[in-house]
């Protein structure tokens, strides 16, 4: 723990800290462009110059200089001020003065720092450099003349994403950042380089010229595009969500989000259900709320009513539906739309127990039936980190393009009962061994076989539980906590032949199974569920309601309402409350607060933000597992939920990045 003095203030810094980190610990702001906490140190922007004694009598780049015992660091001397001004002047030599037409304006590091640390004016009279634009795909817009060569994007794609596609060509003044032959950046996290870019060289293509940052209302929310529950910020203006940005949460998403989480928001204004529809003579016709409620109540379902939860639901909606069903005398609740029927008697057995942050410390990882890159891109980032630390990864299931070295063990699940010696060796040596079961494995009934690995591979140790189930529906863990699971899965609901089926944004269900039921779709997008419905009650999307979400590691998180739902659409719980009146039953809440407290009274864990405690892992039942994993449930990363399917950006990504069609561009 070296002691250093920063501007006369003596502080102790952790071993291995850099001078820049020492200055930050002392509360000093060090301007920087190329340095980023989560990337390797490049030291090429020179903006972080400070004066360090002992050392050469010149300013030094603090980001790349280790803090050592007895250093005297000055960040406020005349030398430092002059050095910063000089560096800033050099950076601005070739930076265009186009802030008024630059999308980064208002949230630009270069702008802010040149105000804070630069000279007042320019002394440069020569021509500025101009660089041709580079095509980086449908998400990233480039204006490469603005690039200051910090290489954050290059380091991100190499280190975090694990897909070497961005590089710096040529040298010196001619240096240019580009993807290989200007191919589109093809991975699920590519748009994070937009946040990383300290200037306006890489900006968001779909958001181009939409708004200025100071016009936007910022709402803290939770991403629902997968089960990771990435912390996001929704920036909205008026009734429209214009963009989603990641928030920093080291336990969940660090500071990244997937491209889907970031760019599905334009789907929130498309294909929306904004009025009530009733199917008459086989055709959906617009109707009023009264007509719809009358039609539903006319069925007089009694206790023959079921609720199916969709993938994007918040816990409050699911609880409201549960309360309604309970008042009617039914408990036909199910959320696993595709018919999975794994045992949920212990939630610890279907939880990501090692936690998302914990998985990166694992040193032997067996993935069974999960295309992690598509099902949870943020977990894939963690896995890559684990591999960089020396972890060995084995995967059972069809091959997919990993971003780290991994061994595929084939599609046959019987390999779990007879693991190859290399796997056993790796796990025998491991301090923190982990198994990740994915949706494809759960669908094949591999849960108990997976649990049997706990003992055989020693997954549970003191302060370590390496048994993980990776879900990909944002509502899954919340639904399971609220009892949205039948013993036989969806088949039980079908078997009960309910008179009324409440489809709560459920778009993956095969509704032909419910031919004789009245299908009431309560959701926000005109997707598969709405097409099959008899009555459509327009509801709110995740951006349009407060709600509690539980991610795949059992982390309870709260999202806030960013905008109002369009047209006649209402928040889901109010619709369910009104349905209770239509059915003539009492659900015991009249406001969102009452609903929430009733929910928390029933499931106390939902009232506490943070990891829910699911107890210890159950003992495995002896089972013989056979069968093969032929395919993963996600066929198209960009089109997994109704919001994304409605989004033109996601459709474009799917067409261009996954299906290889040329992006139709107008001739310029």
């Amino acid at each position, binding site marked *: 723990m070296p002691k250093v003095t920063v501007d006369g203030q003596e502080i102790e810094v952790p071993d291995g800290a850099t001078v820049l980190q020492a200055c930050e610990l002392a509360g000093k702001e060090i301007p920087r462009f190329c340095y980023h906490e989560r990337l390797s140190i490049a030291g090429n922007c020179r903006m972080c110059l400070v004066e360090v004694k002992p050392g050469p009598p010149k300013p030094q780049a603090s980001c790349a200089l280790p803090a050592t015992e007895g250093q005297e660091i000055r960040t406020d001397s005349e030398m430092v001020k002059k050095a910063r001004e000089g560096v800033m002047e050099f950076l601005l030599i070739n930076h265009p003065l186009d802030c008024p037409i630059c999308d980064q304006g208002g949230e630009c590091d270069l702008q802010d720092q040149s105000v804070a640390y630069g000279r007042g004016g320019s002394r440069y009279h020569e021509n500025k*450099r*101009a*660089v041709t634009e580079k095509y980086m795909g449908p998400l990233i817009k480039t204006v490469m003349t603005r690039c200051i060569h910090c290489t954050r994007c290059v380091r991100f794609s190499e280190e975090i994403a694990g897909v*070497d*596609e*961005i*590089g*710096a*060509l*040529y*040298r010196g*003044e*001619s240096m*240019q950042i580009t*993807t*290989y*032959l200007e191919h589109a950046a093809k991975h699920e996290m590519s748009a994070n380089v937009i946040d990383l870019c300290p200037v306006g060289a890489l900006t968001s293509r779909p958001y181009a010229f939409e708004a200025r940052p100071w016009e936007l209302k910022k709402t803290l929310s939770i991403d629902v595009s997968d089960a990771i529950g990435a912390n996001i910020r929704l920036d909205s203006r008026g009734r429209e969500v214009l963009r989603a940005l990641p928030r920093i949460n080291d336990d969940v998403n660090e500071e990244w989000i997937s491209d889907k989480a970031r760019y599905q928001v334009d789907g929130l204004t498309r294909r929306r259900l904004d009025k009530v529809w009733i199917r008459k003579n086989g055709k959906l016709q617009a109707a009023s709320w009264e007509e719809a409620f009358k039609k539903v109540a006319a069925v007089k379902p009694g206790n023959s009513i079921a609720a199916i939860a969709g993938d994007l639901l918040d816990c409050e909606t699911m609880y409201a539906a549960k309360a309604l069903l309970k008042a009617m005398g039914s408990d036909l609740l199910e959320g696993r739309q595709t018919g999975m029927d794994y045992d949920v008697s212990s939630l610890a057995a279907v939880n990501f127990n090692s936690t998302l942050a914990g998985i990166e410390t694992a040193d032997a990882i067996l993935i069974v039936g999960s295309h992690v890159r598509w099902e949870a891109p943020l977990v894939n980032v963690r896995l890559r980190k684990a591999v960089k630390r020396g972890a060995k990864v084995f995967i059972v299931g069809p091959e997919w393009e990993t971003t780290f070295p991994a061994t595929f063990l084939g599609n046959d699940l019987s390999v779990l009962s007879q693991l190859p010696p290399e796997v056993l060796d790796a796990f025998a040596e491991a301090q923190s061994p982990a198994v990740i079961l994915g949706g494809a494995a759960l669908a094949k009934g591999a849960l108990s076989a997976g649990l049997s690995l706990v003992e055989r591979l020693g997954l549970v140790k003191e302060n370590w539980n390496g048994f993980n189930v990776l879900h990909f529906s944002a509502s899954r863990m919340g639904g399971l906590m609220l009892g949205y699971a039948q013993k036989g899965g969806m088949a039980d609901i079908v078997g009960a032949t309910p008179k009324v089926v409440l489809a709560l944004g459920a778009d993956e269900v095969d509704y032909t199974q419910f031919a004789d039921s009245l299908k009431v779709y309560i959701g926000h997008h005109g997707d598969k569920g709405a097409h099959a419905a008899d009555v459509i009650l327009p509801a709110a999307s995740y951006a349009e309601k407060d709600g509690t979400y539980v991610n795949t590691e059992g982390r309870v998180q709260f999202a806030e309402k960013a905008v109002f739902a369009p047209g006649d659409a209402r928040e889901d719980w109010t619709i369910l409350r009104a349905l209770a009146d239509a059915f003539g039953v009492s659900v015991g809440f009249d406001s969102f607060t009452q609903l929430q407290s009733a929910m928390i009274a029933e499931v106390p864990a939902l009232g506490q933000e943070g990891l829910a405690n699911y107890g210890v892992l159950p003992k495995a039942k002896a089972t013989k597992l056979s069968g093969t994993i032929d395919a993963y449930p996600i066929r198209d990363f960009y089109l997994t939920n109704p919001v994304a399917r409605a989004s033109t950006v996601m459709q474009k990504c799917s067409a261009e990045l996954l299906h290889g069609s040329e992006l139709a561009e107008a001739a310029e």
Partner: protein
Amino acid sequence: MADRALAPDTPELRAAWGDFAFAPAWEEKAKAAIARYPAGRQKSAVMALLDYAQRQVGEATNTQGWLPIPVIEYVATYLDMPVIRVLEVATFYTMYNLAPVGRFHVQVCGTTPCMLRGSDDIFAVCAKRGMKRGHTTDDGMWTLTEVECMGSCATAPMVQINDGNYEDLTPERFEAVLDKLSAGELPKEGTQEPGRHTSEPSGGPTTLTAMVGENHDYRGEW
């Protein structure tokens, strides 16, 4: 702005170079280059391999050679590294030609010492013969590039043509070199000044003069 630019990735280019592979002689050299580094560090040999690839292209085209995109991709695959990383190396070093060059790649040094010693006259000779910076003459014989210091300042001005250095040039001496080259002869490499061998002081030694003919003990004179 950039003088150097990648030759565009066209179907014709792919057709011409798509099936590039090291000839046995170059392959042997490539293997030797890779063997210089520990196992798993084969990427370190990227610069050598790019050079070999360029030379093999040169043999095929009877020039100094260049690096078409399919060849860069071949090297990347050969070394099991991302092609963008190879491209970064190839575009960084001016030794690698990114576009086809003529039979003779005339690289004239224009850095200060050569400039002071008359590199402008050398450029004038080139211009007289129809060479333009960054271009190949229509007959495919000459490509002119202005380069930065080649480390031959003591014998400035200098020109590098393919693998040979021609130093101590004057317009006449340079013309003679070019004439010989176009006549298919190999001019003498190195300094073109009569009586000078390498980079020793021009016009005879100025220090240790007593040592020229025989050994001389200077110690008594200190």
